[in-house]
């Protein structure tokens, strides 16, 4: 049995042990708190180090970006002052360091190479960016280094927005497009040169082929042996193949270069469409295809437009139908629609066109690939693109609906105002004779001289010929003529030079009417020729009606005997 003192001591000991236990507990808890705090501090330190490292890495790469970026990037603050720029700008401006322009306004800096108008345009774009908060694009030329090297820049200005959406500054990105622009211009020039060459070559071919055709025609009118008739037919067949091809190439070249000018006049619409019927009836019949033409009764007899080009469009469509239809029928329909519009449709039961191919049908350049040129069908494919371009030029449209394997309908819509019946060009040609007239024909191609002689001979006109401009001037210096028909394109001295010299000469023919013979008698060319001293222009091949008109107009009236047709 323990004494009270021992009990008291035991109780005190228990209390102390308990207190100790509690203190140990608290100490353990404090230790835990210290451990957690240390871990948290370590985490913060790691995170800070990571953030700093990442930031410094980003800053380093940003600096590399700005130093090495090939484009000119300018950063402006809200007051239009330079905040930063890429080294390429400093290089172009021949500045040693950014410090020289830092804090300066772009007005100050750009004034070094740009005038007030340039800066005003930039200002306007800058203002638009700030007010609309949208990207603005302008294109400007600038010679930043004043070295004579003017560059073309596409300038994009973009707002730099802070996290509240306020414009804190503007980024201007100058993209040098000079090389691209020059390459594009060179490509366009090369393309135009190609087109011009193409056209020139085609014209060189065109006149001789015309001459061959004409000569064959005259030959066919003479007595021929069967073998000779056969040969003539063969030559004419080859000409019939070659002429349309050359015509299409010339047309396409002119259309592509934007040089083709329409020659609109009143013409007999029904007669023109009927000529197509006459022209194609036999060809379709030979192939066993029914060909019908249907013209609405309300179709105007006379319309105002470029007759030849309209026929060329329809010829392309009919050629296309002829080629691609093996059986069934082809129909040509024409009817007026609305006010002043004529709708002409060519429908066939041919092979049709796949839907995915339709968008490429009228594309011109698809036909001028090397593969297309080398294929046996080259040239036939130019018809639709030329028709399309001609329609566009006339303010019309052409479209196609087709079912593959079943057939197609090509529809042309052209604005052709109806003309009064009295304006019909289908007037009868007057008969005339001018046996006393003296006409000089000048052309370097014998065949053309033959053709002209033949035509003039039909009017009882005796003509003399010269083979060159120089020869013509010699002849004109010696004797008087009533009229000169002068080919423009001749080697050495061309028709224009010869005419100019004639006008300057004191001889008897300095004022004689000189008519230019030119394969391209368009409006612009005509005015140039008239300015060279010509009195008029006749298109080649010479139309008989045009020749009659020319003779009536320019021969002395007393030497012309006109009889009604």
């Amino acid at each position, binding site marked *: 049995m323990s004494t009270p003192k021992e009990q008291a001591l035991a109780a005190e000991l228990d209390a102390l042990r308990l207190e100790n236990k509690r203190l140990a507990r608290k100490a353990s*808890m404090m230790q835990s708190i210290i451990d957690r705090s240390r*871990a*948290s501090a370590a985490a913060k*330190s790691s*995170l800070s180090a990571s953030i700093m490292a*990442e930031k410094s890495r980003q800053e380093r790469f940003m600096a590399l970006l700005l130093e090495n970026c090939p484009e000119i990037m300018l950063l402006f603050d809200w007051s239009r002052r330079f905040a930063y720029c890429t080294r390429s700008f400093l290089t172009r401006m021949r500045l040693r360091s950014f410090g020289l322009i830092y804090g300066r306004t772009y007005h100050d800096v750009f004034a070094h190479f740009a005038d007030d108008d340039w800066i005003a345009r930039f200002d306007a774009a800058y203002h638009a960016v700030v007010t609309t908060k949208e990207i603005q694009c302008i294109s400007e030329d600038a010679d930043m280094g004043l070295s004579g090297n003017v560059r073309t820049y596409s300038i994009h200005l973009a707002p730099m927005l802070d996290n509240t959406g306020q414009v804190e500054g503007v980024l201007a990105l100058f993209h040098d497009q000079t090389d691209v622009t020059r390459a594009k211009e060179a490509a366009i020039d090369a393309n135009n040169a190609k087109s011009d060459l193409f056209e020139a070559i085609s014209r060189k071919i065109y006149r001789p082929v015309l001459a061959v055709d004409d000569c064959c025609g005259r030959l066919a009118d003479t007595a021929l042996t069967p073998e000779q008739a056969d040969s003539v037919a063969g030559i004419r067949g080859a000409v019939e193949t070659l002429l349309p091809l050359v015509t299409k190439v010339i047309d396409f070249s002119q259309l592509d270069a934007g040089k083709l000018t329409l020659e609109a006049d009143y013409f007999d619409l029904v007669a023109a469409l009927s000529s197509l019927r006459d022209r194609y009836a036999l060809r379709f019949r030979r192939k066993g295809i029914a060909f019908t033409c249907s013209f609405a009764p309300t179709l105007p007899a006379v319309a105002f437009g470029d007759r030849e080009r309209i026929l060329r469009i329809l010829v392309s469509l009919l050629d296309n139908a002829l080629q691609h239809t093996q059986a069934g029928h082809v129909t040509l329909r024409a009817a007026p629609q609305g006010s002043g519009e004529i709708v002409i449709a060519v429908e066939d039961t041919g092979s049709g066109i796949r839907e995915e191919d339709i968008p490429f049908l009228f594309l011109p350049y698809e036909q001028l690939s090397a593969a297309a040129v080398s294929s046996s069908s080259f040239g036939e494919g130019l018809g639709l693109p030329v028709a399309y371009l001609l329609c566009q030029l006339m303010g019309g449209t052409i479209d196609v609906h087709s079912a593959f394997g079943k057939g197609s309908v090509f529809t042309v819509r052209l604005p052709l105002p109806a003309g009064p019946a009295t304006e019909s060009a289908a007037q009868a040609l007057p008969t005339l004779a001018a046996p006393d007239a003296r006409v000089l024909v000048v052309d370097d191609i014998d065949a053309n001289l033959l053709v002209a002689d033949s035509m003039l001979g039909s009017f009882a006109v005796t003509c003399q010929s010269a083979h060159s401009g120089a020869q013509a001037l010699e002849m004109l210096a010696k004797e008087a003529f009533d009229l000169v028909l002068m080919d423009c394109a001749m080697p050495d001295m061309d028709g224009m030079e010869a005419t100019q010299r004639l006008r300057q000469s004191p001889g008897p023919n300095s004022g004689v009417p000189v008519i230019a013979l030119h394969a391209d008698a368009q409006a612009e060319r005509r005015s140039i020729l008239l300015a060279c001293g010509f009195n008029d222009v006749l298109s080649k091949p010479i139309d008989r009606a045009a020749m009659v008109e020319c003779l009536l107009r320019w021969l002395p009236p007393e030497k012309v005997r006109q009889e009604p047709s």
Partner: protein
Amino acid sequence: MQILTAYTTEIDNVDLAVEQIVQQLDLSHRLASNAVGILSCYSEFIDTGVVQALCACMPFDIIGATTLASAVPGLADHLALTLTVITGEDIRCSTGRIDSVDRHNPGPIAHNYRLAAAQHEEKPTLALVIMPIDRVSGWNQALDVLDTCSGGVTLFGMVAADHTSTHLDARVISCGEAYVDSMAFALFSGNIETAYHLACVPTENIRQEQAIVTAAEGSLLKEINDIPALQHLQLRGLLRDNPLEGIKAIPFIVDYNDGTPPVARTLIDFTSEGYAVCGGSIPVNATLSIASLDYDDVLKTATQAALRVLKHPRARGVLLFSCVSRNMALGFDSLAELESINEAFLGHRLPFHMCYSGGEFCPVRAPCGRSLNRFHNDAIIACVFSEREDAKGG
């Protein structure tokens, strides 16, 4: 429904501790027919027998866990035991425990859930879940199994923690016994409505640089941007000589890229292959961002959560769980968050129970409006209890 709270700091004198709790609860006047208790405590309360004695003298089941620190009205302490009783005449409560939570064997989870759910006439409104600490992090798998077998019942709860940095002493408490690897849960149904709040890392603390999770398996983050996770983090300068030093205090924000709010993940450990063991699942193709959480952020988000809770017009009480990593950010002022909650609720007479957890279960809202159960780290979560508006009080 009533929510009663009580606490004691008496660890050694079992009888005194129990007496203090009993006096505060005043169960003779306030206990209804149905009740369940939620307990959180300093681990030594288990060792001294306080938990066992307390559970033995209560006429209802008690589930809970050890924790780093806890708070109820008038108390915020590391060395405390806090008990909250949810009781009501027209609510149904049941509890369950699953031995040895094994993510590869979902059978026991489903079986025990169904047993507990069978005691309810209707589908439970809430499953309050207490998970054991798991260094291999099978929480997500257990969550998925529960989610599936419960038919999508809302899961809210915590992972057991303790005051140590390794949580070696963390235990789950169920009916007086403490378990290292058991899961405890309580199901609620009847006249009970719950609302949930979640606050994590402030958006402005999330760094813009993102990485892509290119290989992962559950909670195992294998590769980031096609390189092993450890190597990626080293490249970013986040890991010093000791890979684990401080990494747990850095929240990683995982965006599932499915329209749901991003969740935070804590890195717990690294495998020999350089894979990171995370405090929750990380899906492949999720984007990963680093965030930071400091003292002020913890208090700010805690106060925001408290204020949102206080806006509920019919709130009867609230359970709050906050992640231990948030406590790490408080440094030596370890009780600051608990004290801020106490201060926020002061004068509102709203019973609350808050403790620290090793991970949080709280639903999030999908873009279509559906509630999705999700596991979180670095978060403070709150479950507000109320009665249905059309029901009478009980």
